[in-house]
């Protein structure tokens, strides 16, 4: 008797599982429900938005934007999740290939977006560009950055500049001026060093901060055209021009002790305190340094263009552009497009520019309230002959991984540069084919 009862019980359990799978479809056939929906003001549409803006200040602004959108569109519910930046980069493949991907995602413009667009994973949003009049209100350069085969897939949201940031008070204390040329820069370093201040702080735990040094030195020494061709795999890493960057410019900085000790032990933001407390004076960094710098000291932060090494070489700058796109398989394309249209609007762009100090892509944004820093940054980029994205955005992820490991190894052991470059060249040949 007992065994029969058990058998029955297990059958019931199994049936329960089976029916649970079918259950959600059941109410669909009941027309009575419709009246109920009419009674409510509006049935809420849903749009799923995954964002990598995980640093405190951008996160707050991002959340504020979503809130503004929901206030204007009470019929749409935004399901917003923020994922830590590094984790997001690794998870995006799973997001985009899932059968029910998030609708709207943050991502990087340029090659990194192109990679997914080429695989057909991103939705064509030319209609949004058309309707919103972005073809006129966005500069041609940003439009080109978002376009593949004549169609727009990306919304460039904001961009920021890279520069050498410095502590104004430290510079004042030792009577230093912003250096324009490499000689002046070395002189500044020497003076600081002589006064017991480490000239440059850097945290290379996640390696990309070192890649910024390579980007700038290579662009200043060999020009942006050579640099971007190297990124695209069209130039060789064992080229003597590349070696010169390491041996003639980068190695002396390390050998002279111009960088802080043990940079590999710190993440980029963990290296900030050295500068804030006056032990170090300068940091080659993107403008987001402002978000993580001690708030009461932000006004002490100045920046200057990475010094010119060869005046005959065109000036290249790193100005990474972030933005949004919609997954090709998005479940709620209409609401997603509405959200994107809002993100690209003058209002949203103005908000981001005012709160975070990033530079807006939409030309309608009122720039009269811009801070001095924003004006200076805008000027920096407008004067550049060429704008690159960044080392790990301009080349492929795998090349960037091997390349950045190479930079770290060089940092530890500058004499092994020939071996390192030979290894990078082997990787380049493997990835881009000869």
């Amino acid at each position, binding site marked *: 008797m007992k065994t029969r009862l058990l058998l029955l019980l297990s059958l019931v359990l199994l049936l329960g599982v089976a029916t649970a799978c079918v259950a959600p479809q059941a109410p669909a056939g009941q027309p009575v429900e419709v009246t109920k929906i009419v009674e409510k003001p509006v049935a809420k549409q849903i749009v799923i938005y995954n964002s990598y803006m995980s640093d405190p200040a951008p996160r707050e602004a991002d959340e504020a934007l979503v809130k503004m959108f929901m206030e204007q569109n009470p019929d749409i519910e935004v399901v917003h999740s923020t994922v830590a930046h590094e984790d997001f980069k690794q998870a995006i493949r799973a997001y985009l290939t899932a059968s029910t991907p998030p609708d709207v995602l943050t991502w990087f413009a340029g090659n990194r977006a192109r990679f997914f667009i080429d*695989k057909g994973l991103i939705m064509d949003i030319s209609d949004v560009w058309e309707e919103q009049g972005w073809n006129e209100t966005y500069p041609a350069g940003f439009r080109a950055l978002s376009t593949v085969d004549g169609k727009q897939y990306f919304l460039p949201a904001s961009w920021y500049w890279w520069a050498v940031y410095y502590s104004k008070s430290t510079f004042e204390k030792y009577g230093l001026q912003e250096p324009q040329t490499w000689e002046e820069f070395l002189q500044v370093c020497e003076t600081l060093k002589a006064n017991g201040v480490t000239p440059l702080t850097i945290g290379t*735990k996640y390696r990309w901060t070192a890649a910024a040094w390579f980007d700038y030195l290579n662009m200043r020494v060999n020009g942006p055209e050579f640099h971007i061709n190297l990124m695209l795999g069209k130039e060789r890493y064992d080229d003597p021009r590349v070696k010169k960057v390491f041996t003639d410019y980068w190695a002396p900085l390390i050998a002279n002790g111009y960088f802080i000790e043990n940079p590999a*032990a710190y993440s980029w933001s963990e290296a900030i305190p050295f500068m804030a407390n006056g032990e170090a004076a300068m940091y080659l960094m993107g403008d987001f340094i402002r978000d993580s710098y001690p708030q009461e000291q932000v006004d002490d932060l100045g920046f200057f263009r990475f010094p010119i090494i060869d005046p005959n070489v065109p000036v290249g700058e790193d100005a990474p552009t972030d933005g949004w796109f919609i997954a090709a398989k998005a479940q709620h394309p209409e609401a997603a497009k509405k959200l994107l249209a809002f993100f690209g609007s003058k209002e949203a762009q103005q908000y981001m520019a005012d709160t975070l100090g990033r530079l807006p892509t939409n030309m309608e944004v009122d720039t009269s309230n811009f801070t001095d820093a924003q004006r200076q940054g805008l000027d920096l980029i407008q004067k550049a002959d060429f704008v690159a994205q960044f080392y790990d955005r301009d080349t492929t992820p795998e090349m960037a991984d091997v390349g950045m490991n190479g930079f770290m190894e060089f940092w530890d052991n500058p004499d092994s540069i020939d071996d390192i470059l030979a290894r990078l060249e082997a990787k380049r040949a493997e990835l881009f084919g000869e």
Partner: protein
Amino acid sequence: MARRINLSRFVPYFFLIIPLLIYLIWVIGPTIYTFYLSLTDWDGLSQPHFIGFQNYEKLFRDPVFYISLKNNIKWLISFITIPVVAGLALAMALSRSIPGERFFKAGFYSPMVLSLVVSGLIWSWMYHPANGLINSVLRSVGLDFLAKGWLSDKNLVIWAIIVVAIWRQVGYVMVLYLAGLAGINPALIDASKIDGCNAWNTFRHVILPLLTPVTVIVVVISIIDSLRAFDLVSVMTRGGPYNSSSVLANFMYIEAFNNYKMGYGAAISVVLFLISLVFILFYLTRVLQDELEY
């Protein structure tokens, strides 16, 4: 009557159906699929193409593979010696009733309670070259030359991480040995004393042989733990600087999820699986044997 017996025989299987299905779909299935993926060039997005053993050929020529393997071996050797000896010593000391014995037991075991991620973070701060606990103490007692960049020096970094793993493991081994010691019949120890053994001889010729089954399990667990080491490396260095603290699991993770070489990552995990399998099989046969003995 006969029919009823048949039914009752099936009942356990009814209950097992769901867990077995889950196990099949989420454990066995992916394992087999990983073997297949290791023979493809899958990048996580496109259709995988079959490329034979190319991933394995590449792997055996990859210097990072050998760095990672060496680091796993360093980890393994440290793990089957230091925590085992230290854990046994602590267990011997704490198995007799001494004042505060419970406090010490709890104290030595407590690192095990923390998640690996938390341990990794805490030690990262202790290793901080400028303001960390370790370097601050060394500097304050005038041993400046010993204050190193623990996690940024390519020769030190893997040892700095292994220390954390050992710190965590000692308490665990201690508890296993304490359980083993509790199972020894005190009459045997009394007998050895009556026969004129001193403390060392009692330990060497009576206690240690009786602990052999525990020792085998401790060693095999340590080997398996050291082969699947990942969390501490991932949290503390991500395998850096330039791969010098990479271990196989971390190498696999970077290749698969950072460089999007899923096929290559699968090949690494297959190799890691095969190495682990040797020890796991040894462990399982040993455990089954023991069960039969008792």
